[in-house]
């Protein structure tokens, strides 16, 4: 046995990344009683609209976000100033390429921690108030602000960097580039795609360095258009619609004062690892915050051995997607989901804290599908970004002409729904779990709840509160 033992010892020292990769897969396996394929769809799209203008610009204040527009505006003549080659795409099961991309694009822990801190700070500020469904993509806002920061100087830059939790714009640009390539996914199973575009007024002089940096690190397409024209507004709207596969089609209006529109979209689509049995989907009652109730369709399943966490005022558990994870946080009876996120620290506790258990978890998840539109200017002001919105804004890295941000709006669309799937694809395997069940959790989401979609390197692609699954 000496040689076998030597082999076993040699295997001990394989790289940490491989151990973590295996651990992750094993954990996913423990949490699944049965393995099924190609079952549920969870498409979501987000778009963020950010603009800079010579004077205050309110063009987006009346923006209407539409789902599945009957007529998608046609892209008008708008040629990009610089062609952008997107990162290579690869098949879902091409783990070699995925491995290679990870090795070639190191993302520092300090960057992912900063991104996460930014996510909780902004999300807490946005989600703590309100009574309606809300969906927010921290990642989308981060990229839009990061791109703006790389063209900012002086106080404007300092304020943006402080909120983005990075020491300087060189680090920010390099890490955003690496994270973009790491996160980018467009294959037969899932889409996780950040897209950026800069729409510049044709009469304004732009700095070539900024345009090149935007293309290199943010994969941003740059268009030179007459921003005061209806054609430009239609072209931007069409670009958003194209990037989000038609999920969003904001009705933008033209604005003669605007000199720059910075558009960022995050498109996301993934499938459940384990589908909910469609035959078990049943209508049930969902109790709203005001005590009244609505009836909606609930997807049902029970895991005999599944991980869950309990903390002060909530129970949390997650469902695996093929490329990501969706986490659900159910407040205890009488606890408002808003109260769990009213500070960044409390929100982090709800998403990451609590005591971990393994046991029977009963899932009852409502189907929901809604758009959300957020005006982020005030939130950003409250978080210390004020110079960028004022007359003394310094975007001299972008243009020598006076320019400042006039508005930041984010529109998102999320849908948790089922896709028609051949039931013959079901394969049932009896589970023999080694972990001793320690309890039981009811994830019956029959009252307002929190959710999040966790993407590459634990980044928060989306977070939201579902107050009413039947509201659009």
């Amino acid at each position, binding site marked *: 046995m000496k040689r076998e033992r030597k*082999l076993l010892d040699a295997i001990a020292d394989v790289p940490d990344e491989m151990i973590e990769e295996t651990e992750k897969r094993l*954990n996913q396996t423990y949490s699944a009683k049965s393995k099924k394929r190609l079952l549920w769809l969870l498409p979501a799209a987000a778009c963020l609209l950010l603009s800079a203008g010579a004077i205050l610009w309110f063009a987006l204040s009346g923006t209407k976000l539409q789902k599945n527009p009957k007529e998608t505006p046609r892209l008008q003549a708008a040629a990009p100033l610089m062609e952008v080659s997107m990162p290579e795409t690869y098949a879902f099961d091409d783990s070699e390429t995925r491995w290679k991309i990870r090795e070639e694009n190191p993302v520092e822990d300090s960057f992912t921690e900063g991104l996460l801190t930014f996510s909780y700070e902004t999300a807490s500020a946005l989600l703590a108030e309100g009574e309606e469904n809300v969906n927010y993509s921290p990642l989308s806002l981060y990229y839009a602000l990061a791109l703006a920061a790389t063209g900012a100087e002086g106080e404007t830059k300092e304020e943006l960097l402080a909120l983005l939790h990075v020491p300087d714009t060189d680090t920010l640009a390099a890490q955003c580039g690496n994270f973009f390539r790491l996160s980018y996914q467009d294959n037969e199973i899932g889409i996780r795609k950040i897209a950026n575009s800069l729409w510049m007024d044709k009469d304004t002089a732009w700095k070539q360095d900024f345009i090149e940096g935007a293309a290199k690190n943010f994969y941003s397409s740059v268009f030179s258009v007459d921003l005061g024209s209806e054609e430009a507004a239609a072209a931007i709207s069409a670009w958003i619609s194209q990037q989000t596969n038609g999920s969003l089609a904001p009705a933008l209006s033209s604005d003669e004062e605007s000199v720059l529109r910075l558009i960022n979209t995050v498109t996301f689509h993934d499938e459940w690892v384990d589908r909910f049995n469609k035959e078990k989907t049943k209508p049930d009652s969902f109790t709203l915050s005001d005590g009244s109730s609505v009836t909606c369709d609930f997807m049902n399943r029970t895991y005999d051995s599944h991980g869950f966490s309990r903390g002060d005022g909530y129970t949390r558990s997650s469902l695996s997607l093929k490329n990501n994870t969706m986490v659900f946080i159910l407040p205890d009876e009488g606890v408002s989901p808003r109260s769990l996120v009213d500070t960044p620290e409390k929100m982090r506790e709800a998403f990451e804290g609590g005591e971990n258990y393994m046991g029977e978890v009963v899932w009852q998840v409502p189907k929901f599908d809604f758009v959300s539109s957020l005006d982020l200017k005030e939130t950003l002001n409250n978080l210390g970004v004020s110079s960028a919105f004022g007359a003394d804004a310094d975007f001299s890295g972008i243009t020598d002409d006076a320019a400042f941000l006039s508005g930041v709006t984010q529109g998102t669309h999320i849908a948790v729904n089922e896709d028609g799937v051949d039931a013959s694809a079901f394969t049932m395997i009896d589970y023999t779990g080694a972990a001793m069940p320690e309890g039981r959790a009811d994830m019956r989401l029959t009252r307002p709840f929190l959710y999040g979609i966790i993407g590459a390197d634990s980044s928060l692609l989306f977070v939201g509160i579902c107050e009413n699954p039947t509201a659009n």
Partner: protein
Amino acid sequence: MKDEQIVALFWEKDEAAIRNSDTKYGKSLHRISFNILANREDSEECVNDTYVKAWNAIPPERPLRLFAWLGRITRNLSLNRFYENHAKKRGGQALVLLSELSDCIPAGQTVEEEVEGKLLTEAIVRWLKGRSEEERALFLGRYWFGESLVSLAILAGTDPNRLAGRMFRLRQSLKDALEKEGITI
């Protein structure tokens, strides 16, 4: 708690480091040990010893990936315990793993040509990188984590019998790779 925070607690010699390590990774470490030893009492001791080792090693060490670092200690301690137990004719799952690994031993070895452990690891890593993510998880799940074929069959979406055949082909593939590189053990 983030890994770096736990490591910082170890550096400050704060006992909360052990508590937080156990909260975050205790279950997984226990599982690794139990997979090897098939004895709850022994595996609990190995996990406790893991924390003692970590306490003594940090500082000066500052592991970047805490789970892999702790898991490696647990695995080594559990294997050592297994070898001791085996000498005393007490059972354990690792015997099965060792016996399976016989399939991977390249032919034609002599004592003089024996390869260094580090070079052997490097060759295994090269081979692993050439496998799909699922194959890597299956191989390491079995021979790093000591998982049962039943558990791994769920991961692979198959039944244990079919998986056993697949694992055999994986071991053969490693053997071929080692032979091609002229590695002897």
